[in-house]
């Protein structure tokens, strides 16, 4: 029993080593990250096609989308930054051309609300577990047990 356990511990350690090595190679040898093509792709995916409903310019064959794609390629060649290109397009088409909502003012709510809700839910769960842990079970009264019996009966 203890031998088997020891072997398993060694196995887990070996696994951690193999995994660390694999991930290390996989992350550090990331040779083709962030080339121009990737930039173009991610930019065009974050700009809405102004004539199509809810598609990005990367996804649309409409003339407007083609025009914006050409403009983005041109601006990348001219050395403009992603933020510059986005601002320019928002300046002529309006904020709704950006598929990524802003991070300031009311727009930031779309980013923060889910995180806040998750934190509140986790806190609620933590409180619940603490109550359950700290003798929550002891609170089960006869009524409670009757309820369970009833529920089990009902489950038939």
């Amino acid at each position, binding site marked *: 029993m203890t031998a088997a356990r020891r072997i398993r511990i060694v196995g887990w350690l070996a696994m951690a080593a193999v995994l660390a090595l694999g991930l290390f190679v996989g992350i550090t040898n990331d040779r083709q990250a962030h080339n121009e093509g990737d930039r173009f792709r991610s930019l065009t995916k974050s700009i809405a096609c102004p004539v199509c409903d809810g598609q990005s310019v990367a996804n649309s064959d409409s003339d*407007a989308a083609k025009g914006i794609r050409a403009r983005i390629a041109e601006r990348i060649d001219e050395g403009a930054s992603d933020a510059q290109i986005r601002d320019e397009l928002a300046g002529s088409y*309006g904020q709704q051309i950006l598929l990524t909502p802003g991070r300031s003012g009311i727009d930031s709510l779309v980013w923060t609300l889910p995180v806040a809700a998750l934190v509140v839910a986790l806190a609620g769960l933590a409180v619940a577990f603490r109550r359950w842990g700290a003798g929550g079970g002891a*609170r089960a009264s006869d009524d409670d047990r009757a*309820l369970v019996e009833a529920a089990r009966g009902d489950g*038939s």
Partner: protein
Amino acid sequence: MTETLDPTNVPDDEPDDDGPEPRRHVGLIIVAIVAVVAVALVAVLATSQPANERRTRSPLVGRTVPALSGRTLDGGHFDIDDQRGRWVVVNFFATWCIPCVQEHPELVAFDEEHKVPGDAAVVSVVFSDDPAKARTFFARQGGDWPVLTDDKGSAALDFGVPKVPETYLVTPSGHVAAKFTGGVTQAGLDQAIAEVDRALNADAGGGG
């Protein structure tokens, strides 16, 4: 599966000495929160206009007009900066677009009305269309204002034109005063000019 449900199995639920009261409050608070959120959601959805009727505001309105210059159909050169001192109507159009064809007579009427006083000019920009077709179009439908063949579509991008027809009204000082999506009318353009004039005069009157 025949006697599965027995209706008499739930005992009375007298509140326990300490348990249910706070929990009940928590439950009711959660129900209330969900209710408030749901009401707000319904209110927002109920007051939202359909996507295709929503007014598109141009961020350009109130700002200096983007650069617009280039060769015209008749071989001349046009630059919007040379037009300071009079109103300019910048019209994006294509011959294949039906509302563009429909609005054209209104533009012709507007142009004729203002040609003699010289207080307003019209310029058209061809939007993803063949210059030759545009020439035939103007020959057939009338109108002899400058027509820019914006072959690369860069003017449309600077103005943020998603689809045609789209028309911008530029003040004599070179600021974008209004944007019209869909067809324009002579009366609509004149009215917009009058409104801006009135606002400017009111400002000037208030200031002096």
